[in-house]
C-alpha cells in the first residue's frame, strides 16, 4: 500500500496551554513537505505531538499512517508503525553506546528470535556511517553524549537511514550544520527519497531546500498552517521574511502560547 499520512484537525496543549490549534496536512509517499515559520509558532510542538512526547497532550484531531491512528499508540508503536522524528534537541544517554542503541532499535522491529546478526548489523551501520562521513568511533561513543550540535544531527540521520521509516519528520536538521555537513546530510535524505516514503521538513532556511527540493511548502503561525504553496513560497520567505504573510492574513503576533 502506498504510504499515506494524514493529520486532521490536530490540537495539542502543553501544561494546559493550547499550542496546536488544528493542523491539517496530508503527505503521500514520495512527497516532500517543508514547514517554515517564525520561532515559537508550534513547529516542534507538532513534531513532538506526532511522536507522542509525554509532555504534550493531544486534545482533538487525529494523525493516521496508512489508515492506522497513531494517536492511539504509544511512542514506540508509532515508531514501529513507520514514523521517524529527527529531533531538534536529541537526548544524551550516558553509558549506552550508539551501536547498542541502534541495534536495539533495529531489533525492536524484528520478531524475537529473528534479531539481526552482529556482523550484518555492523556492516550496515558502518556503511551508513561512511555515507555520512562519520568517524567510525561514533559507534562506540555513548549516545549523543558530548556530541557537537552537528554530530548529533548527523547521528539522527544515521538512525533514519538504518530504521527505514515511512514518514520522516526532520525538525531543524540543518541547524548547527556546517556547509559540508549540510550537503552530506541533504545527500543522506535524498538517498532515502522513495515512492514509499514521505518527508516533513521543518526548517528556517532556504539553504536546506536548495539541496532537497520540496513539493509543498507550508507556513506555520499561531499553531496553524496559515499558508501553503510550492517551492517558490520558500524562496519568497527567504527573500522577504514573514511580514508580508502576516499582513496578508492580518496577523499581529505570530507566536502561540505566550502569556
Amino acid at each position, binding site marked *: 500500500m502506498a504510504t499515506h499520512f494524514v493529520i486532521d484537525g490536530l490540537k495539542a496543549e502543553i501544561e494546559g496551554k493550547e499550542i496546536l490549534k488544528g493542523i491539517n496536512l496530508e503527505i503521500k509517499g514520495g512527497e516532500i513537505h517543508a514547514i517554515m515559520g517564525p520561532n515559537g509558532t508550534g513547529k516542534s510542538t507538532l513534531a513532538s505531538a506526532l511522536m507522542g512526547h509525554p509532555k504534550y497532550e493531544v486534545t482533538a484531531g487525529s494523525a493516521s499512517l496508512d489508515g492506522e491512528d497513531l494517536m492511539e499508540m504509544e*511512542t*514506540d508503536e508509532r*515508531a514501529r508503525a513507520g514514523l521517524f522524528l529527527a*529531533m531538534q534537541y536529541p537526548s544524551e*544517554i*550516558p*553509558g549506552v553506546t550508539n551501536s547498542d*542503541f541502534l541495534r536495539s532499535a533495529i531489533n525492536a522491529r524484528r520478531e524475537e528470535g529473528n534479531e539481526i546478526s552482529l556482523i550484518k548489523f555492523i556492516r550496515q551501520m558502518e556503511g551508513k556511517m561512511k555515507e555520512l562521513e562519520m568517524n567510525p568511533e561514533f559507534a562506540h561513543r555513548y549516545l549523543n553524549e558530548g556530541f557537537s550540535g552537528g554530530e548529533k544531527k548527523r547521528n539522527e540521520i544515521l538512525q533514519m537511514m538504518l530504521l527505514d521509516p515511512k514518514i520522516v519528520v526532520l525538525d531543524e536538521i540543518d541547524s548547527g550544520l556546517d556547509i559540508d555537513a549540510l550537503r552530506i546530510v541533504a545527500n543522506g535524505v535524498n538517498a532515502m527519497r522513495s515512492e514509499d516514503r514521505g518527508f516533513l521538513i521543518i526548517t528556517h532556511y532556504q539553504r536546506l531546500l536548495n539541496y532537497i527540493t520540496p513539493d509543498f511548502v507550508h507556513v506555520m503561525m499561531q499553531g496553524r498552517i496559515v499558508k501553503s504553496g510550492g517551492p517558490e513560497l520558500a524562496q519568497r520567505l527567504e527573500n522577504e521574511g514573514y511580514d508580508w504573510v502576516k499582513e496578508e492574513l492580518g496577523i499581529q503576533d505570530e507566536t502561540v502560547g505566550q502569556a
Partner: protein
Amino acid sequence: MSTQLTTPTDRNSAETLARGKGEPDWLVSLRGEAAELAGTIEWPKPEKVRIERWNLTAVGSYETPAAVASLAELPANVQELVAEGTENLLVQRNSGVVWKQLSAELASKGVIFTDLETACREHGDLVKPYLFQAVNKDEDKLTALNAAIWNGGVFVYVPKNVEVELPLQAVLFNDNAGATFAPHILVVAEANSRVTYVDCVVTDKSKANGEFVHPAIVEVFVKPGALVRYGSVHSLGEGGVDMTIRRAVVENDGRVEWIIGDLNDGHTLSDTKSVMKGQGSTSDVKVISVGNNAQQMSLTTRAVHFGKSSDSNMITRAVMRDSASAIINGITKIEHGATKANGVQTERVLMLSPKARGDANPILLIDEDDVTAGHAASVGQVNPEQVYYLMSRGISRQDAERLIIYGFLAPVVSEISVEAVRNQLQRLLERKLEG
C-alpha cells in the same frame, strides 16, 4: 526441627552440631559462646532501615551435604555460572560444600582452596589466627549468629610470593529454603602474593521458594605487598534475607579490590569495609545494585585509614525500580596519624518509578589534617526525555528503561578488570532485569 524462634540458636544445639561434624574443640567452644551471645545481643542497626522488621529468624536447620559426582548434577542455572574450563572451583549447596577442585599446580605451590569446615579440621594452625579476627563474633547478633551456625564456607590461603593468575571461583547456592545457608569466607594472602577470588551466591529459584536468611561473613587478610581481588555477585531469591558483612584488613603496601553485585530479589544488608592498617595500603570498592518490587536494601561501604599514605576509593551505583528502596551509606574514616591518606567515595542512585526510594549518605570522618578526601552523591529519577527518545526509535518502554539502567551501571561494570566477575555480573544483571 525447623528453628523459627526469636533466638535462632542456642549453646547446646550449636555445640552438638559442631561436635557431630567432628570440628576441633576450639571451634566447638567458639560456636557455643557465640550461640549464647546471639541470644543476648542486638541485630545491627543500619541507618534508616528497620531490619528487625524483616524475617531474620528463618535460619532453618542443618542439611547434611551430599557431594556431587560431577558438575552436571547441579541445577542448570548454577552450572551456567561456572567459568568455562575452570580448574579451581568450589560449590556450596545449602549447608555444605558439595564440590571442590584445585589445580595440581596451585596445590604444589602451597595454595589452599577448600571449604572452611575442612580447613578448620586440617589447617587449624592457619585458620585459627584469622577466624573472627577481622569481624568479631560479639559485634552484634548477626556476627554472633554466623559464628554459631556458619557452615560450608571457603578458605583461601596463598603463601608468600605466590601469584595466582586465574581466579579461584566459588558458587554458593541454596535450593532448600528450610536448610541453614550461612557461609563464612576467609581469605589469607601472605606477603607479596596475589590472588583473585570470585563468587556467586544464588538461589535456585525453582526450588527454594520459602523464606530463609543468609547470614554471611567474609574476612580478608592482605599481608604486606599482597593483592587480593574479591568479586562477589549475590542473586538470592525473593524469600531470602541476605545479610553479608565483608571486611578486609590491609597491611603495608597491600591492596584489596572489592567488586560487589547486590542483585538479590529479597531484602539485603550489605556492608563492605576495608581497614587500611599499613602504610601505603590501598582499597578500591565497587558496588552495584538493582532493586525491584518492595525490596529494601541497606548498602554500606566503609574505609578506615590507619596507615600513612593509605588510599581508598569507593563507588556505589544502585537502580531502584517499583517500590524498592535503598539506603546507601559511604563512610570514610581517616584516623589521627594517617598522614597523606586519601579517601574518596561516590554514591549514585537512579530511580525508575515515583514509588522507588533512594538515599545516599556520604560521610567523611577525619581526625588528621594532612589528608585529602572527597565525596559525591546523587539521587535522581530517570529522565523521561531519555525514555521518550529511545521509545521514539521503536524501543519498548521496558527495553528503554533496561538500556538506561545498563548505561547507568556501565561506568562501574566496564571498569571491572576481572573478566570472570564482569561476565557473571552481566549475566546475573540480565537475569534480574529480564525478570
